[in-house]
């Protein structure tokens, strides 16, 4: 059998393509198969790659179901949306999907702990400093409380943060 693309070399690679539910069989020589797979890789974009990565390490079906339904309270983006487009909706998504994003970030970057610059430290010189760090500290404590599953403590801290933010805005 000769290659379906070049018609010159013997076909050694047999490929089944499914495009829009149409099945198509291709018999290709090694060179044409290589070109074809390069073209396929290009179509396979970053969002597919991320979406694929987001699936790893979440083996149980129940957990998967939970992940898909998880929704960011601030912007309304669901984890399923994120998997589809490969983009998060807002900064708050990082808190909303923390449990899924922490391992994903670790797979992408080899780490999920930021050690670079911090904008609140930059503000040292400004008059807002004290108030800012206070809020920052509370947010840190809130994160720790959530991680320790100390929910009463977390609720107390959340209310304190809300109160400070409300005062700041008014």
């Amino acid at each position, binding site marked *: 059998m000769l290659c379906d693309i070049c018609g010159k070399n013997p076909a050694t690679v047999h490929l089944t393509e499914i495009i829009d539910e149409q099945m198509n069989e291709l018999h290709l020589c090694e060179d044409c198969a290589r070109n074809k797979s390069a073209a396929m890789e290009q179509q396979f974009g*970053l969002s597919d790659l*991320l979406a694929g990565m987001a699936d790893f390490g979440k083996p149980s079906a129940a957990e998967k179901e939970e992940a898909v339904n998880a929704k960011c309270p*601030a*912007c309304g*983006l669901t984890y399923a949306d994120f998997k589809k*487009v*490969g*983009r*998060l*909706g*807002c*900064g*708050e998504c*990082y*808190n909303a999907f923390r449990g899924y*994003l922490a391992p*994903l*970030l670790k797979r*992408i*970057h*080899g*780490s*999920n*702990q*930021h*050690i*670079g*610059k*911090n*904008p*609140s430290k*930059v*503000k040292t*010189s*400004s008059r807002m400093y004290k108030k800012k760090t206070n809020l*920052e500290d509370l*947010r*840190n404590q809130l*994160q720790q409380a959530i991680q320790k599953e100390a929910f009463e403590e977390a609720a107390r801290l959340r209310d304190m943060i809300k109160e400070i933010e409300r005062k700041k805005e008014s």
Partner: protein
Amino acid sequence: MQINDLLNHTSEWLKGTGPNSDIVISSRIRLARNLNKIPFPHWADKGQLDEVVNTVSAAVAKVSLLKKSTLFELAKLDSIDKQFLVERHLMSIEHAQKTEHKAVLVSEEEIISVMINEEDHLRIQLMQSGFNLFEAWNIINAVDDDLAKLLDYAFLPDFGYLTACPTNTGTGMRGSVMLHLPALVMSRQIERVLAAIAKLSFTTRGLYGEGTQASGNFFQISNQVSLGHSENEIIENINGLIRQIIEQETQAREIMLSKSKEVLEDRINRSLGILKSARIITSQETIELLSMIRLGSDLGMIRGIDRRIINELFITTQPAHLQKLENKKLSSQDRDLKRAELIRNKLNLI
């Protein structure tokens, strides 16, 4: 500043100066930043996007290094102007598409540009001529510090700067170095070098960033990892890799000079001959030939042609630049004629 004012001006990064500028064209740092409590551009509504443009442009006006900059609202620019900004590396190809509620801010001398509402609310970038990432970082870091005092950035202590795509989370930083590697390409060693780069989790791209082909022996190398390392560590890692590639290119050039000097001289001078006399030339052929005369100039085989003139020609022979110079829309055939004329005029003057 108007867009047309940029036309008669050489971007800072094209000057052909700075460390290792025989091999390194330019060094670039970009920072991805988002405003707290506003959805990322792809998820925001029109009102929120306009709010970002307004908030960011108001803040920028107070930053000393950006005081003399100009804000271009993309929806108000025609397609040639947009492509012109892309060709000058002031904004990405993606930013030039679907331009509603987007803007780009360009500093004096075109050193710093800020894309507003690209993939993230802010993409601050700085380009320097030569191998100069630390200097680029020092300047952009100061600009970012000033902006952080005026803007409420989306940031978490553990994840760092929060970005639309998790591949940029953390420092939000990408450092890129544009290299000219003709000897590694001609000696067919480049595949091996690029494979090694990919294994070290760095990416290689062409002249115009993401998704573009490497052409004319130009390669842009940048970090992939943005979380878990400090900005200085990331730059030091890129620098370490770039130093090795510079060494390999230098060696390859030396070997070519010692083993096949005549062949190289012939190829370089033929390239110069074509550029000096061609009447019709495509941009792809231009880039390939300019790459050869740049190598000739670096090796001292061609005298009297300043690197800066060659660098400028890489940009001014691009489609939108030609059309801006002629001040009208040109068909592809007309561009090939005008391109050849522009190159002849520049090179025969010398």
